[in-house]
């Protein structure tokens, strides 16, 4: 892997431009004249940018930027993990992305299943899982697929290109627009506007959010992932809130178009359909899951195997887990700091809840970058 080293600073990290945007944000929030103004982003990568660059300390005091259900690992539900653990217990070779290994099921994680002697492999892409299937032609290889629209397209493309007979997919892919609807309907959230994830919008296009904005009265701004992308998107979002315009703005035009990547969408919907399912800690989300269409039953692990989750089921009463606030954090009702376990009993090397497991989880991100986001008073 060769890398061209840039001689100049990245233009998306220019401190002078950041200061201008922070001042513009302050002006727009003041002009609204109420406190707090609540906005939500639904992407772990946005939280990464905000936390890593310390942006919360530069946000106006009256603006509350909340992280919503933006991490596919965090929202993968316990029974879905149990299905994967059961498949491993039944002798299948289960391939999945790294963070999924630590995600707790009712009793066990896939990491535990591996420690028990189960065949579990970490892969970096669905194609790598197909390679595993080719290397082990006498075994059943199941790809435990997680992720939103973006990774679901990759899964779809691989299936459309043809896979070996011993390969199947256990889908826990999720569809973000559906979860935004659920969160916006929660009376306790009071979200006034949304930052939508740029990479998902590359696939879906920005127009997909228009009906949502009209229905909920909350504007949506599509944003990229550099710190200045996030700041600029917030300025635009607060301006739309101030002017009471429930519209969609695209602040990531270098990557996102109105209609999105249509060949990718075609692939996605040829293979997947939306179904109603539970998102861990949040709620039952109508049209929130991406399941394989009936015509793909031959590669659908749920259809192909009788998955006996009683092999791994049975709820364990865990005193610590009962205190975990992951559900409230993913719904935007609480932040990681409100959780008594944060940074104490719950740490990246000993996570209690799903949000501390994944590098896209809110708790993990806050912990990685120091834990306390508001440092306006120092120095």
């Amino acid at each position: 892997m060769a890398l061209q080293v840039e001689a100049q600073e990245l233009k998306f990290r220019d401190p002078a431009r950041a200061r201008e945007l922070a001042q513009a944000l302050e002006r727009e929030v003041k002009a609204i004249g109420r406190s707090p103004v609540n906005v939500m982003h639904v992407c772990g990568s946005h939280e990464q940018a905000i936390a890593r660059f310390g942006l919360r300390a530069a946000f106006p005091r009256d603006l509350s930027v909340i992280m919503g259900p933006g991490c596919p690992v965090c929202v993968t539900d316990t029974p879905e993990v149990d299905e994967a653990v059961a498949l491993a217990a039944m002798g299948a070779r289960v391939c999945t992305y790294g963070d999924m290994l630590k995600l707790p099921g009712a009793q066990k994680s896939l990491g535990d299943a591996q420690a028990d002697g189960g065949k579990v492999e970490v892969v970096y892409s669905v194609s790598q899982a197909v390679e595993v299937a080719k290397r082990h032609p006498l075994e059943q290889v199941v790809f435990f697929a997680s992720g939103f629209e973006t990774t679901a397209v990759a899964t779809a493309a691989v299936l459309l290109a043809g896979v070996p007979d011993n390969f199947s997919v256990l889908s826990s892919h999720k569809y973000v627009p559906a979860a935004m609807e659920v969160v916006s309907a929660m009376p306790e959230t009071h979200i006034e506007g949304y930052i939508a994830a740029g990479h998902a919008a590359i696939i879906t296009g920005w127009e997909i959010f228009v009906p949502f904005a009209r229905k909920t009265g909350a504007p949506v701004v599509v944003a990229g992932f550099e710190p200045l992308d996030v700041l600029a998107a917030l300025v635009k979002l607060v301006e739309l809130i101030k002017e009471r315009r429930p519209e969609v703005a695209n602040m990531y035009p270098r990557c996102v178009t109105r209609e999105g990547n249509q060949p990718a969408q075609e692939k996605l919907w040829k293979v997947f359909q939306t179904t109603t399912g539970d998102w861990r800690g949040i709620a039952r989300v109508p049209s929130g899951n991406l399941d394989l269409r009936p015509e793909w039953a031959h590669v659908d692990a749920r259809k192909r195997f009788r998955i006996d989750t009683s092999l791994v089921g049975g709820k364990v009463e865990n005193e610590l887990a009962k205190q975990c606030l992951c559900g409230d954090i993913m719904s935007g009702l609480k932040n990681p700091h409100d959780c008594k376990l944060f940074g104490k009993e719950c740490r990246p090397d000993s996570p209690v809840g799903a949000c501390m497991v994944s590098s896209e989880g809110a708790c993990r991100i806050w912990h990685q970058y120091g834990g306390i986001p508001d440092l306006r008073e120092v120095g």
Partner: protein
Amino acid sequence: MAGPDRVALKHGAGGRAMRALIEDVFLPLGGPVDGVGLSAMDDGAALRVGDQWLVVTTDSHVVQPIFFPGGDIGRISVCGTVNDLAMMGATEPLGLTCAVVIEEGFPREALERIRDSMKRACEEAGVTIVTGDTKVMGKGEVDGIVLNTAGFALARRIVRDDGLRPGDRIIVTGTVGDHGMAVMTRRRDLQIEGDLRSDVAPLNGLVRAALQAGGEAVVAMKDPTRGGLASVLHEFAQKAKVGVVLDGPSVPVTHEVQAAAEMLGIDPLVVANEGKAVLGVRPEAVDRVLAALRAHPQGRRAAVVGTAVAERPGNVILDTGLGRRLLAESDGEPLPRIC
């Protein structure tokens, strides 16, 4: 997997977990001394001998790969010990010891290369090896080779690592992250364009120049090895009970290290260095010390990177240029063992 009652790799990574292990297990070994003893958890000990201090330090060295761009385990073993002495203010080492544990089957040619490298580093530092010990262990009982070096020196004044007070400035003597990134990219076989090399070097000459210029106004020193600059600043802040504001954009980092760091998702601030020092300096002497460092070939990229403050004692606040956050102390998670 190591449970809470087992030692894990993170306990050797120079961060919070390692400090807790040392405090729990090894500190009871120490006792009161006239000077700096084990309980200070400084770079070495300082024992009073007449009107001077005898400074003593010891270090074991394991690194994979053993040879890497810019250095090898032999060079690290000499420089690490010379630097630990220098960080106590002892820049004229009297001698070093060297104990070697070798795995059966280790190539003799590699051993001789390591010896030659140690000899060259000793010459640069103006010191010699005065005694040693050799052990050979069976195949698989040790990973290649382990070197232990100890050093001793006399000093009129020692510099500790707890001397900061609000208003003091923090200087780093050059770019950070070079050693760790060189080793990591070599280990993972990543090819970064440009020259990604370890900075491993003896720092006693550079530190001598800084102390001559700053004198008593140099109030804290430490070399940012495991855990990197972040770990050193946490130690400074916790021991002196001050906050430290680190000005991120002014921390010198080469473009190659920055690129590798972005690619691997690792913060150069938590990456190890083997040829850099971090100094706490009273504000009135900052310009003098900085000029002396920059006049030395090893300190050309020295920079003032931070300030001690009264707020948030024990914490390090990172100003990213775009905002501010607490700088988390390394937990040893992202880093493989590198020194």
